[in-house]
């Protein structure tokens, strides 16, 4: 019994310090992200001359938008893509074997015709049935192909594209009009750039007019609000922080710009993984590090795209399950990079962080709560310690979330009304009282599913945020 | 010279202000709209004698405005004149403008005195 008690105490203490470590490392990331953001803002100098940042001068972009059964919103999303402010870009919609009338709607609305475009087979994909184009919309193309899921669709798009850069988006991503210009700047400032990620913000609750966001508001629902805080913390500031260390491992599948040649060089997206967005970025890192070439992967906090986040707990759960499986898959495939000096900060900082803080945390967190409860009932732990434990788990987490809201106010200030900022602060508290634990459970299930070999995507029902 | 009612539909702030200033100092009554939707509404409400119309506008493009006016049975398209002022100057765009009812097409960048000359020509036709 003595031995058991000691073991339990030790485990409890270890887990306590684990929580402290996780929260503080995230706080560190956020502080560095603030530094990084301030740095990039200083770069725009006082006097600007017209014509220098005329983006048509530098590179061309292909927007790749895979679509599967999107008949409800496809016309609207495509119209929005046609109104972006960029001189030389093309839109390649990939109809990934939709079973509904997605393709028919597109053909009818945009008066598309079958064209005989030569498609080099740079990357292997499911067969392409036809390519459609239109002289009325000379930069719009629709690729009709057999179903092969998102990665395969993107690869087909890459094959069809003839531009310098590719911008992979989800079909429900809404890009802000100047987004492509901002992303381009990273490629222009450093010609060795191969990939750039931008910010994904929560669209639920915002008002959209003519394909642009007119009012930025917090979502109305609890689940939406919690995700709003979460996106600030993890996606906006978390990633900017990694950019400071030049070790960005993940670029959102909802929005990322890549150098087309580079993606083809590494073989395109991997199609038998659910985490194809992260996997590609890690593979790019690995490829260029192995070759010893100079390259950069950036994250820019200014370019914003909006996406609809799940409004139902079950859809959200499935999404987070899938993300966890994708993360596990990528880390496993590239386990050789872990703690490998050849990969510098990536191997020593980023990958271990993702392993211990992102991947394994659900096990440790849930295990921790479980052990705490057992220890408490066995009388091994007293009330004080349990309180400490929960402080580390919850209160520090609250500080972290509120810090993110602070950072948002100090840097981007996209939320128009103070009322929304107050709501965010409130939900920064609430996020850690229940949601975080549920989230850990979903991720735990994701890990189990990963070990069981589950590769499914799950359904996403759209709740019509972008429709008028 | 006779005072006319002129509507300037242009989303580039400074250019619009400059044009408005020059036209006003010539004695015309000038109104300015920044986007296509409001511009279309202003055509119907302000009833200008001449519209200085840009093509690249938020909301409705210049071409879309002209198309809508042509399709609108209640609206008499002969009542007002259109001068297009745009950075798009491919021959297809110019012809399209004329086909949709424009009387003059001034490409950007433009010389102010030439612009005013052509504007007068349109007003006097």
């Amino acid at each position: 019994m003595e031995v058991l008690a000691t073991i339990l105490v030790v485990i409890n203490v270890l887990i306590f310090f684990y929580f402290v470590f996780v929260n503080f490392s995230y706080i560190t990331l956020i502080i560095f992200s603030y530094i990084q953001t301030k740095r990039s803002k200083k770069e725009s100098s006082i006097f600007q001359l017209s014509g220098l940042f005329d983006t048509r001068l530098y590179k061309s972009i292909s927007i790749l938008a895979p679509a599967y059964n999107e008949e409800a919103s496809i016309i609207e999303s495509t119209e929005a893509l046609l109104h972006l402010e960029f001189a030389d870009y093309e839109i390649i919609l990939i109809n990934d074997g939709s079973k509904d009338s997605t393709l028919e709607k597109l053909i009818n609305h945009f008066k598309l015709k079958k064209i005989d475009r030569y498609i080099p087979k740079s990357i292997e994909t499911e067969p392409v049935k036809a390519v459609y184009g239109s002289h009325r919309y000379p930069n719009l193309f629709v690729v009709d192909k057999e179903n092969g899921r998102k990665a395969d669709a993107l690869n087909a798009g890459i094959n069809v594209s003839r531009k310098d850069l590719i911008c992979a988006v989800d079909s429900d991503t809404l890009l802000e009009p100047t987004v492509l210009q901002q992303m381009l700047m990273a490629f222009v400032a450093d010609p060795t750039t191969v990939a750039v990620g931008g910010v994904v913000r929560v669209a639920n609750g915002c008002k959209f007019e003519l394909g642009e966001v007119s009012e930025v508001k917090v979502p109305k629902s609890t689940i939406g609000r919690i995700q709003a805080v979460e996106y600030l913390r993890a996606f906006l500031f978390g990633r900017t922080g990694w950019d400071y260390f030049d070790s960005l491992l993940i670029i959102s599948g909802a929005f990322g710009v890549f150098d087309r040649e580079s993606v083809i060089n590494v073989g395109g997206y991997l199609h038998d993984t659910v985490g194809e967005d992260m996997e590609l970025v890690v593979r790019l890192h690995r490829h260029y590090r192995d070759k010893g070439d100079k390259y950069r992967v950036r994250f820019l906090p200014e370019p914003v795209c909006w996406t609809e986040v799940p409004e139902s707990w079950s859809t959200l759960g499935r999404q987070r399950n899938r993300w966890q499986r994708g993360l596990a898959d990528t880390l496993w495939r590239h386990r050789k990079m872990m703690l490998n000096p050849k990969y510098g900060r990536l191997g020593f900082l980023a990958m271990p962080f993702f392993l211990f803080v992102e991947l394994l945390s659900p096990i440790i967190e849930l295990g921790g709560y479980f052990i705490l409860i057992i220890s408490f009932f066995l009388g091994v732990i007293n009330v004080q310690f349990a309180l400490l434990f929960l402080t580390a788990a919850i209160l520090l987490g609250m500080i972290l979330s509120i810090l993110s809201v602070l950072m948002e106010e100090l840097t981007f200030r996209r939320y128009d009304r103070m009322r929304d900022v107050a709501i965010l602060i409130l939900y920064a508290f609430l996020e850690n009282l229940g949601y975080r634990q549920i989230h850990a459970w979903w991720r735990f299930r994701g890990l189990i599913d990963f070990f069981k070999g589950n590769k499914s995507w799950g359904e996403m029902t759209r709740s019509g945020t972008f429709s008028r | 010279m006779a005072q006319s009612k002129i509507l300037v539909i242009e989303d580039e702030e400074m250019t619009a202000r400059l044009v408005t200033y020059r036209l006003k100092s010539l004695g015309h009554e000038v109104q300015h709209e920044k986007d296509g939707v409001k511009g279309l509404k202003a055509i119907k409400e302000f009833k200008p004698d001449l519209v200085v119309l840009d093509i690249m506008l938020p909301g409705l493009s210049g071409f879309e405005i002209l198309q809508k006016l042509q399709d609108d049975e209640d609206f008499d398209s002969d009542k007002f004149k259109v001068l297009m002022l745009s950075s798009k100057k491919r021959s297809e765009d110019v012809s399209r403008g004329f086909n949709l009812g424009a009387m003059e097409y001034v490409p950007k960048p433009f010389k102010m005195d030439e612009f005013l000359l052509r504007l007068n020509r349109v007003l006097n036709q």
Partner: protein
Amino acid sequence: MIDYLNTHAEQIVLIVVIFLAIFSIIVFVGAIYSRWMLNLKDKKEREIRERLSGLVIQYVSGDLSFEDLKSELSTETDYSILMQISNQLEKNLEGEEEIRLKRLLNLPPIRNFFIGRFETKDPLERAKACLYFARQNKIKKSILPKIMSYSSSKYPMLAYASCMAIIVHGSTRQQREAIHNLLINEGVSDQALNDIFKEFQVQSSEESEVESHLLMRFIADKAYSDRRTALLIRTLGELNFYQSAAFLLSEFESLSEDHYSPVIATALIDVLAQFGMSEILDDLHTIYTSSEHREVRESTAKALGLFTDPVSKPILKWLMLDRDFYVRFYAAKSLSNYPDVQMNELNLPGMESDEYSELLGEIETSKELEY
């Protein structure tokens, strides 16, 4: 350690809770404060912008002298906003107004700023300086070699800006070298080169021969990528350099039957057709009609419509059965140019009648929308 935690647990928790509470209040108050400060700053900037906009408009229209405008400027913000206003106007104006705007660049704070930028290590800042020099009417010849060296920079904006400066201020030889550097720089877009050629034309306004000779020489050198060569060919067409027609024709005829570059072939076909060089008809009929590249077939279909040669008629009918819609479309459109062809009476085996009427409808629309 564990004992320490146990005994002081309550204090630690209390400290964290208090810290959390204070922190949240600070964040909230801080947010309100920073908003308020930002609003103030925005308001001040807007006021400056209002005031300066009015002044600039008067100045540009000749109603306000340069000196009077200068006297209204004092702070750095003033100058910075002035530049923004000036940039917006300069995009759209030519002639008198543009000259007046350019004069604003000579204001001492602005001039000193850009000259200072020339000496930095940052390529973007150097690019700004080069662009500034390009906008000036005169610069010191001594800095030209340095600007020239920048034109071979791998940073596209520096290469572009410095080339622009050379075009405006450099000798013919320097211009040639700078343009060559840009042609081999794959990071610079075709659009940027278009800008350079346009500026080149402006600079050598009387002697348009110089430019067309230079372009022809670049094409003849065969030292550049297919895409660049096509751009050079199209530039000759866009600038209507008819004197290059004979040269382009010889380039066209020297294209290898088996390994021609589709992008160059298309450019040559488009420009030679535009120049009315009917000598290309034979090769169009025999080689390019059956090209495996759709762009080449499309250009061929378009070109044949410009010549309306009777020999092309059956070829166009054949192209109307092409597997690509737009080849079929342009073939039909070209046929409709023939005075002796009745489009609705064409009898084409292999084409469905409703597809055919759709095609005719599309031609009507294209004439309306001009594409």
